[in-house]
C-alpha cells in the first residue's frame, strides 16, 4: 500500500494548483456574483489539456490516471467550485459514457473533440418526476425509420446550453421499466432541441444549470449509445464515477475554506493578539484539517480503485457522502472563525459555504449514498 502520489500525479497537482491560483481564483467571486459561466476557466483548461485527462491518447486525451483527474477537480474547487463542476460534468458525466460504451465510430465522431476541449459535454438524466427515482423517466425515444424521435424534458442539467454534446436518457420501451431506458448522444443545434430558463441557485452560481427541451428531436439511430435498454445501467455506472468527481469538488471546497481561515486567523487581532493564538481557534482548525484529510484519503482511494479496475461503487458513495458532509461542516466552521467578515461577500468563505451545499444533493443525495453503501453491506 502506497500513500504517496506518483511523479506524474505530483507534476499534475502542481500544474492544476498554478492554473487555479493564477487564473481561476481571480474570477471566482465575479463568476458567482454575476452568475456567469466561467468561459475563461474552460479556455485555460483547454490550453493545459485538462479536458480529457483520464482518456486515451488515441482520442486526444492525456492518457493520465484517474487520480490525476480527481486532483484537477480538487485544486480547481479550492478556489472556484463552479469551475470544478464544469470540469467534472464534462469529464465524468458527459464524456465517460461515450468513452466506455461508444462504438468506434461514435468515439471518432465525438470523443476526440471532447478530450481536446474543442467541444464541451453534459449529461441529461434528471426529470421533474425522476430525480432520485431515476427509473421514472418520461422522456421517450421512438424509432422511426433510421431515426429516433425524442420528446420530453430534462431539468437541472449542468453545462446545459454551454455544452455541445449531451448524453441523454429516454424510454424506448415503457413496459420494461428500467430495462426500457436507452442512452443517446445529442448535439446542440439539432432541430427541436432547445434550452429552458437558467436556474437561480444558492451556490455554484456560475455553473449553467437549466432545462433541456426535446420537441420531436430527430437523431440518427447511430446516436444510440450502447444497446436499447442499456440506458439505466449506463446512467448508474456513469454516476458511480461522477460521484468521485463531486467528492473531489467537496474536498476542494473544504480545503479552500481551511486555507482561507488559516490565513485570516494569523492576521486578525482581538484582545491584542492574533486569534490564531487562542486555543479555540487552534482546536477548530485541527479538527477541520483532520476531517478533511480523512475525506481526502477516502476520495483518493475511490479514484485509485476505479483506475485499477476494482469495484468502486461503495467506495465512491462513501467518498461522496463523507466529503460532502465534511465540506458543509468545514465551511460552516470557517465562517464562524472569520466572524462577521466571514459572513460577508467580501471574503470567499461565504461563497464556499453556499457552494458546499450542492455536493450533498447532486449526483445522488447523501441519503442515496447511504442507500448504496448499506445496500452493498446487506446484500
Amino acid at each position, binding site marked *: 500500500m502506497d500513500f504517496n502520489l506518483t511523479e*506524474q500525479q505530483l*507534476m499534475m497537482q502542481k500544474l492544476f494548483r498554478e492554473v487555479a491560483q493564477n487564473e481561476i481564483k481571480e474570477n471566482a467571486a465575479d463568476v458567482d456574483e454575476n452568475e456567469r459561466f466561467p468561459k475563461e476557466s474552460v479556455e485555460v483548461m483547454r*490550453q493545459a489539456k485538462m479536458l480529457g485527462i483520464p482518456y486515451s491518447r488515441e482520442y486526444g486525451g492525456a492518457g493520465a490516471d484517474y487520480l490525476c483527474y480527481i486532483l484537477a477537480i480538487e485544486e480547481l474547487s479550492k478556489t472556484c467550485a463552479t469551475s470544478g463542476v464544469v470540469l467534472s460534468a464534462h469529464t465524468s458525466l458527459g464524456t465517460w459514457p461515450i468513452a466506455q460504451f461508444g462504438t468506434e465510430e461514435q468515439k471518432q465522431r465525438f470523443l476526440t473533440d471532447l478530450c481536446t476541449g474543442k467541444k464541451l459535454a453534459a449529461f441529461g438524466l434528471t426529470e421533474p418526476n425522476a430525480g432520485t427515482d431515476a427509473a421514472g423517466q418520461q422522456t421517450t425515444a421512438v424509432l422511426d425509420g433510421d431515426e429516433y424521435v425524442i420528446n420530453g424534458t430534462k431539468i437541472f442539467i449542468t453545462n446545459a446550453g454551454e455544452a455541445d454534446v449531451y448524453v441523454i436518457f429516454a424510454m424506448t420501451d415503457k413496459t420494461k421499466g428500467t430495462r426500457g431506458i436507452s442512452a443517446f448522444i445529442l448535439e446542440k443545434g439539432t432541430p427541436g432541441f432547445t434550452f429552458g430558463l437558467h436556474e437561480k441557485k444558492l451556490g455554484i452560481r456560475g455553473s449553467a444549470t437549466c432545462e433541456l427541451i426535446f420537441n420531436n428531436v430527430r437523431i440518427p439511430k447511430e446516436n444510440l449509445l450502447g444497446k436499447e435498454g442499456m440506458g439505466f445501467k449506463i446512467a448508474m455506472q456513469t454516476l458511480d464515477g461522477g460521484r468521485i468527481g463531486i467528492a473531489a469538488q467537496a474536498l476542494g471546497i473544504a480545503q479552500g475554506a481551511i486555507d482561507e481561515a488559516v490565513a485570516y486567523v494569523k492576521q486578525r487581532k482581538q484582545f491584542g493578539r492574533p486569534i490564531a493564538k487562542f486555543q479555540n481557534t487552534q482546536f477548530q482548525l485541527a479538527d477541520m484539517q483532520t476531517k478533511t484529510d480523512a475525506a481526502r484519503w477516502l476520495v483518493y482511494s475511490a479514484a485509485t480503485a476505479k483506475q485499477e479496475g476494482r469495484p468502486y461503487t461503495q467506495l465512491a458513495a462513501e467518498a461522496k457522502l463523507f466529503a460532502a458532509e465534511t465540506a458543509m461542516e468545514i465551511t460552516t466552521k470557517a465562517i464562524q472563525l472569520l466572524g462577521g467578515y466571514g459572513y460577508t461577500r467580501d471574503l470567499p468563505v461565504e461563497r464556499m459555504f453556499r457552494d458546499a451545499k450542492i455536493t450533498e444533493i447532486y449526483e445522488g443525495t447523501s441519503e442515496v449514498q447511504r442507500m448504496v453503501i448499506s445496500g452493498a453491506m446487506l446484500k
Partner: protein
Amino acid sequence: MKIVVLEKQVPDSTEITVDKKTGALIRDGVPAITNPDDLAGLEAALELKDKNPDTEVVVMTMGLPKAAEMLKEGVAMGADKGVLLTDRVLGGSDTCATSIALAAALKKVGFDLVIAGRQAIDGDTAQVGPQTAERLDIPQITYVDEILEVKEDSITVKRSLEDVEQIVTAKLPCVITTLSGMNKPRYMQCDNIVDLCKEDKIEVLTNAELGIDPETVGFKGSPTSVKTTFTKDVTDKTEVFTLSEQETADMIAKTLKEKQIITK
C-alpha cells in the same frame, strides 16, 4: 532549427539566507522556481516551435541534480528534451566558470540559437548569457523584448533598453537574452507530463564527459568571491514640505528625474 534555452533554478523568495563563510546563498528549504527571464525565453522558443514544428527545443541548466525538476517542467511545457549539467567539481562556479561549462555543453549538444534569460533573480548579474556567447565566439543580443523574425541564417529582434528600443539583426548561430515581460509563459500540458513520466527525457552530463579542465570551473576556477551578502536597510524617512500645486508638481518631477524613473 535547434534552439537551446538556458535556465536557472532560483529560490522563490527574497528571504533567502546566506552562508556566512562563503557568502553563497543557502537554497535549502526555500521553494525553487524557474528564473522568470528564462521562462520567457522558453516561451519564446516554444512559440517559434508552434510556428515551425520542425524546431527542436532543448532546455539546459547547470545545477544540482534537483534542477532536473525544472527541466522536466520545461519539457511538460513543450520542450523536446532537457540537458542537466551536474558535477561536484562545478559547485561554487561563478558566472565566468559557469559560462565555460555551459559553452562546452552547448558545443556537445549543438545549436542554431541559444536563448538565455537576461538575468537571474538571485544573483542579478546578467553575465552568464553574454559570457557564454563570448566563449562560443558568436554574436549576442541582450535585453530582447520580442523576436520579430527568424530566417535560416539570421534573427531579428527588438531590444528594450531603459530609454530606447532597437531593432537588431544578427547572424545565426547566436545568443539572445530575454526579458520576463516579453510574453506570458504557457502552462505545462497534461499529455506532456504523461509522456515525460514514461520516458526519461533528461540527459545528464558530467564535467568529465565534457572534457573541461577542473581547475577552470567550480570554486577553484571562479575569480569572483562574494565578500558579503546582505539585505539593504530601508529607513523610514519622512520629510514634510508645504508647497503650492505648481511647486509640488515640479518637485515630484525633479525627484523622479534624479532617480531616473522618468527621463524628460
